[in-house]
């Protein structure tokens, strides 16, 4: 239980922040930090609750995508068909990074995924790698100002402009 709380506090929460920022940045949406923190905190709490239910990893991800989507609609007051875009982008990039880390851990360091998800030390290191890689991706997106799909130019006010 303590492990779950620790993971949610120190890993799921920052992971949600980075995932949200990646999704929003790639859609050219700027929101203030308070809203980012609020969405990420609720998302991390949801992730924690989902982990407690011990359901399958894939279903956990789908539930998290849906909650993230609902949170963006409610907090950023975005249209539902627009809100899904940054959510899916964020999850997709996070998923790619996770796959990459798992592949490296599995093939080069020879650590099995079951160990990564069950043992706290391994989970912590694994999540730390994911976080740092995600942060690196976010920095690249920020520096290059790369935009995948501009949602801010459609005349709709999305969140608060900084």
């Amino acid at each position, binding site marked *: 239980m303590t492990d779950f709380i620790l993971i949610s506090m120190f890993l799921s929460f920052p992971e949600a922040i980075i995932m949200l920022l990646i999704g929003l940045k790639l859609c050219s949406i700027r929101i203030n930090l308070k809203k980012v923190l609020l969405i990420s905190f609720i998302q991390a709490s949801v992730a924690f609750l989902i982990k407690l239910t011990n359901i*399958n*990893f*894939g*279903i956990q*991800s*789908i539930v998290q*995508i849906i909650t993230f989507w609902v949170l963006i609609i409610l907090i950023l007051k975005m*249209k539902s*068909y*627009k809100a*899904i*875009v940054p959510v*899916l*982008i964020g*999850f*997709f990039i996070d*998923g*790619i990074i*996770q*796959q990459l880390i*798992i592949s490296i851990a*599995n093939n080069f360091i020879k650590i099995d*995924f*079951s160990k990564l*998800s069950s043992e706290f030390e391994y989970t912590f290191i694994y999540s730390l790698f994911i976080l740092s890689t995600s942060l690196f991706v976010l920095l690249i997106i920020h520096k290059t100002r790369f935009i995948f*799909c501009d949602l801010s130019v*459609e005349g709709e006010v999305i969140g608060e402009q900084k």
Partner: protein
Amino acid sequence: MENKNKYIILTTMLIQSTLLIVINCTIIDTSTLEALKSSMPIFNIMILITTVLMLLSLKKANSFIKKETELELVKSNMKNTEDLLNLLRTQRHDYLSHIQAIESLIILKEQEELEEYIKGISKEYRITNEMIRLGNSVLTAIINTKKEIAEKKGIVFHVRCKNKVSLHGINSWELSSIISNLIENAIEEASSIENEKWIKITISYVYNNFVFEIENTRKINNEIGDNIFKPGVSSKNAAGRGYGLFIVKNVVEKYNGSIEFKTTEKNSIIFKVILPSEDGAYGEKAI
């Protein structure tokens, strides 16, 4: 109105990619086959949703292409109307100076010069005086504009309209596309020959159908003749040609009409377009 189509297409693509990643992660994470099987219903639902979205995206993409084509046709229609308006504006602008010149000649009592002057300008304004009015603003604009173009190329342009055209069921840009393409082809063909150059347009109303006949001099190549309505087939050997009649045929068939062509012994070709009139309102005589 917001363009939801692009979001539907984008979301479909992203859901597909994310779903693949999620399935991949689940396979790696699952220790037993039973646990993996338990996730299958959810994944199947996701695949079903993605498939529906894919079909919807395809439909939206088709509708987008159709809208783009319509826009192009509207643009072409607008250009025809604009050309006619410009012609009328130019001539109207000249009226004032001509009236002033006539007034001066009357004051100066230059009878012979006045007669010459009036003869000259009446010849110049023949086009306006002979403005063909067909009861349909789009057709009027197209036919008068094309008539002027044809006459400038030395082509004799005859128009015979037995009844006012009342085609309310057909989009103006699509009607414009049909007639413009056929007349443009006729002008191109007629102008390519040395001797007799003429185009004859006949519009009639037969059994609740409007019949448009566009005849012009020049015998079409028999090899192309059978395939002339296929895309890319043209009597001119040039890239990007041969789509006009293909578009015409598609538009005509969309309105349950028909198009056919025949060559005549007098070295001419006739394109006959039959378009059903929905309301049957045609009674008035064309001017």
